[in-house]
Structure formats: structure tokens, C-alpha cells
């Protein structure tokens, strides 16, 4: 076996360290940006008369911010349990679609796929997809999943116990932390004009449907229609 040249070895080692640092920093940024929502979720849930155990169960097991918020907001506003659960499930469908991509990308086996499925959400998927070309998809997925899971659950408990000290995420501007992070993570995948048009089309189709379909449906309609259009263009 021949030794790799010294400087080349250093270069790959250096770029590996740089990738690890980049992923760690981004995962932490994303993790901390969900904490105001966790605080808010905990507070809103208690106001909707959920017990502490129920609130924690949602963050530990359901673990999907949009679905959790929909569930407790609709219950809190006096809506039916049927529409509350229905909306939460509708918002959860995209996690299944992400799962198919993560499954193809990371090929987990045995018990790992259950753990992976449990933490397949917007944030972990966006990071994994973003790092796929660099070969660091698995590290990106697990780092983000861990950061978001821990900080989401800790902030949920604090929010439920002491209320939302920060005020609504809107006053701190943190309601755009997610969108801004996703824009930055998607940008490297949007290098061709066609993919940019498809992404833009997806956003526009979703918005057009917002006033006329149930909450949760626009994202699915936009995302699925845009992929269908892409396939048609490609033929």
C-alpha cells in the first residue's frame, strides 16, 4: 500500500474538518432558531388546556412543529377535535415524502430506520439534501435532527411551565428564521434555470391555493404539482 502524498492528505483532512464545522454550526443555528417556536408551542398548549404530559408527549413523539401547532391552536380556538387531528395529519404528509428521499439517500437498515423516520422533518431533510453532493448527508441529517430534537423539547417544557417569555416569534423576527435557513440550504440545488422555475412555481401554486383549501394542503399541492410539471418538461 502506498502512502498518500503528505499535502494531499492534509488537504482532505482539512476539508473534512471544514465540512464538520460547517455542519455543526448550521445544525446549531437551526436548532436555536426553533426554540422560540418551542416556547410558544408550550405556552399555547397550556392555554388550550393540555396537561404537561400531553404537551411533552407531542414534542417527544409527534415532533413536527407545524402539525403540533395546528393541533393545539385549533383545539385552543374551540375547533373540533376532528379538524384539529385532520390538519395535523395533513401537515405531516410531507414528512412521509421526505422520508422516501432520505431512505434512498441514506439507506438505513433495521432499527435505524425507525429512529430516522421519527426525526425526518423539514430541517433535517433540508440539511441532508443540501450536503448530499459533499457526501456528508448522514452527518448533516443526524446533527440537525439531534440539535432540533433536544432544543425543541427543552423549549417546549420551558414554554409550558413559564409561558412564552420572548413574546410571539413575530416580534423577534424569528418567524423568518426557518424560511431564511431553507433558502440558504436550497440555493446550491437551484443552479439551473429549470430548477429555479420549478421551485418558484411550487411556491406560487401553493400560495394560489392558500385561500381555498385546508391549512396544510397548499404545501403538498405546490410541491407535488411542481414535480409533475418538472417531469412533463423533461419529456
Amino acid at each position, binding site marked *: 500500500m502506498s502512502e498518500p502524498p503528505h499535502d494531499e492528505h492534509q488537504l482532505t483532512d482539512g476539508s473534512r474538518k471544514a465540512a464538520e464545522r460547517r455542519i455543526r454550526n448550521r445544525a446549531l443555528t437551526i436548532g436555536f432558531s426553533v426554540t422560540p417556536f418551542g416556547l410558544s408551542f408550550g405556552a399555547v398548549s397550556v392555554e388550550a388546556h393540555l396537561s404537561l404530559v400531553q404537551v411533552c408527549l407531542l414534542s417527544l413523539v409527534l415532533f413536527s412543529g407545524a402539525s403540533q401547532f395546528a393541533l393545539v391552536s385549533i383545539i385552543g380556538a374551540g375547533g373540533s377535535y376532528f379538524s384539529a387531528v385532520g390538519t*395535523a395529519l395533513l401537515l405531516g404528509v410531507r414528512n412521509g415524502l421526505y*422520508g422516501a428521499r432520505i431512505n434512498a439517500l441514506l*439507506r438505513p437498515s433495521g432499527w435505524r430506520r425507525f429512529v430516522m423516520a421519527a426525526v425526518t422533518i423539514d430541517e433535517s431533510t433540508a440539511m441532508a439534501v443540501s450536503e448530499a453532493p459533499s457526501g456528508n448527508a448522514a452527518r448533516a441529517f443526524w446533527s440537525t435532527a439531534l440539535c432540533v430534537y433536544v432544543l425543541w423539547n427543552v423549549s417546549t417544557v420551558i414554554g409550558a411551565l413559564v409561558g412564552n417569555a420572548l413574546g410571539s416569534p413575530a416580534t423577534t423576527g424569528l418567524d423568518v428564521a426557518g424560511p431564511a435557513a431553507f433558502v440558504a440550504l436550497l440555493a446550491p440545488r437551484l443552479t439551473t434555470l429549470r430548477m429555479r422555475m*420549478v421551485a*418558484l412555481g*411550487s411556491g406560487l401554486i401553493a*400560495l394560489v391555493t392558500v385561500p381555498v383549501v385546508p*391549512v396544510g394542503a397548499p404545501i*403538498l399541492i*405546490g410541491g407535488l404539482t411542481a414535480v409533475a410539471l418538472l417531469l412533463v418538461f423533461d419529456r
Partner: protein
Amino acid sequence: MKLWLAVLIACAGCAVLKLAGFVVPARLLESAVARRILEALPVTLLSALISVSVFATGNHLMLDSRAAGLAVALILVAIRAPFLVVVVAACATAAGLHAL
């Protein structure tokens, strides 16, 4: 009691939905079309998520401080600003406009 049932059904249902993507037989994911669909789906779903979380509240379309935050994020991403700068500047812009 009904509340417990709602919480448990939501938890179980969302867990099943998450798992659905992982039980698709691998051979179904091998074809060229399936690969194209799977690679594009997270991009289109996240694009739709971005636009809905910026320009909508519930069933209503809205143009508020969030749009300015998104615009700042797009500009900073276009000039290749670091990730943290993009996120913080977008939040600061939205918070600043919100406070006005």
C-alpha cells in the same frame, strides 16, 4: 378523555406518515423517474413551505415584515453570505419592520 384521544391519534398518525417513506421497497426507488421525483420533491416541498410560511397566515395571504426578511435572505444568499449571516439578517429585518 377526548383530548387524550386527539393527542394519541395525532402522535400515532404522524409517526405512521413519517415511517411510510421508509417502507417503500428499495426497487421502486431505483428507476430513473423515481430518482428524479425523489430528488426534486424536497426542493419543491421546501419551496412551497417557504412561500406559505412567509406570505400566508392560516387561509389568508399576507404581505408583512416576513416578506422583507425573505427578500434580505434571497439577496444575501445570491451574494454568497455565510449561513448564520443570512438567518440573523433576515430575522433582524423582519423584527425591525415589525417594531415600526
